[in-house]
């Protein structure tokens, strides 16, 4: 399988990338790790006329502690997150979630920015950033804007980013001393989650229980009332709208959400 014809352009700075996409609008696509975009192009689900490769933008590849927040560059690869010492200390859940994305080859290329902007309801990092109350920073022709994760995931593969905007950074509050848990159920190795759960402190987010990552608000409310892990997890499927598929029916996914939430809460130290 070979993508439809396009023109390839390599960006050597954020400004250069912005100028290229501003000129071509919908016909252009940014290429980060390519681990979602290239498969789509090979299947001809996407056929941009211009590809702007932001792979060389190493200035967007970092994890930094900044006061009580962590700043993660959009071009930071899953493999980087998995092995980052700052993250291991201040937000280990993010490293753990990154370690579960695809396989080692995919993690060597795929980036956190690409995963968030792709906004696949079955993707893991979007739920993690949602659970962590993250903020996404985008740059466009009219400057920079900050978008809370809760407003960023609008539907399957749908975000408020304009084609001429570039995600530069993700910021999350440090999780020092907070419990965390991550559970993911897949059908086979390297696969996307049928259902996943990310717990960060008293925040709980679900993977693949709707068209976007979702906060399990009923679970969070139960925890706030002092419920046990089992009690809180019993309401994990409340307010969700999972897909009904032959290999994973709604009932099955709801069951998984409850079981995995309890396990993740227990890992996070909720008894």
């Amino acid at each position, binding site marked *: *399988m*070979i*993508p*439809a*014809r*396009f*023109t*390839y352009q*390599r960006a050597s700075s954020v400004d250069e990338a912005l100028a290229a996409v501003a000129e071509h609008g919908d016909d252009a696509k940014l*290429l980060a790790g*390519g*681990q979602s975009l*290239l*498969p789509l192009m*090979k*299947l001809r689900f996407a056929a941009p006329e211009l*590809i702007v*490769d932001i*792979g060389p933008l190493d200035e967007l590849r970092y994890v930094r502690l900044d006061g009580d927040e962590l700043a993660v560059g959009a071009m930071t690869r899953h*493999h980087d997150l998995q092995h980052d010492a700052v993250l291991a200390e201040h937000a280990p859940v993010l490293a753990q979630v990154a370690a579960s994305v*695809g*396989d*080692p*080859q*995919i993690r*060597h*290329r795929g980036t956190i920015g690409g995963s968030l902007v792709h906004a696949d309801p079955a993707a893991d990092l979007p739920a993690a950033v949602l659970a962590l109350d993250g903020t996404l920073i985008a740059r466009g022709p009219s400057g920079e804007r900050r978008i809370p994760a809760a407003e960023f995931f609008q539907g399957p593969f749908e975000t408020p980013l304009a084609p001429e905007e570039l995600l530069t950074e993700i910021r999350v509050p440090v999780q020092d001393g907070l419990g965390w848990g991550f559970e993911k159920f897949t059908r086979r*190795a*390297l696969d996307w989650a049928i259902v996943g759960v990310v717990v960060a402190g008293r925040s709980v987010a679900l993977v693949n229980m709707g068209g976007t990552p979702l906060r399990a608000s009923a679970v969070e409310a139960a925890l706030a009332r002092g419920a046990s892990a089992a009690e809180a997890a019993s309401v994990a499927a409340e307010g969700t709208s999972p897909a009904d598929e032959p290999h994973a029916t709604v009932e099955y996914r709801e069951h998984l959400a409850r079981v995995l939430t309890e396990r993740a809460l227990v890992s996070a130290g909720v008894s």
Partner: protein
Amino acid sequence: MKVSIEINGTTVSEEVEDRTLLVHFVREQAGLTATNIGCDTTSCGACTVLLDGESVKSCTVLAAQADGHAVTTLEGLHGDEGDLHPLQRAFREEHGLQCGFCTPGMIMASVSLLEGNPKPTRQEVRDGLEGNLCRCTGYHNIVNAVMNASGQEVQR
């Protein structure tokens, strides 16, 4: 566009279409056919090569993205005298080779795995080869081969 990629120590410069995939460049422009195309959907790992020392699925990287970078394929692993790389030798000793089609990718993924983790546990080997599918389901000997190459005990 013109791309120049250092493959196994030799720079290959060719005019290609912008949409050329790295796996096609390696096989057709460089004439190195150990790197195989299995699934073509980023699942099987038969196309795994090292890009700047890291394993990648070359069916999901553009040749243009590798322009100016270094690629290692299975053909680049053996020593100057043609002596086998420790992983090639271990795959032979443990009969990890099986059907052969997936083996180049398995070996390249194993090289990358041992680079980051020289003494993996059996579970870590399985996780490290998660991106390489084998339809004959013979993973046991493959895990043994990686254990052997890392100087650890194999399971009979």
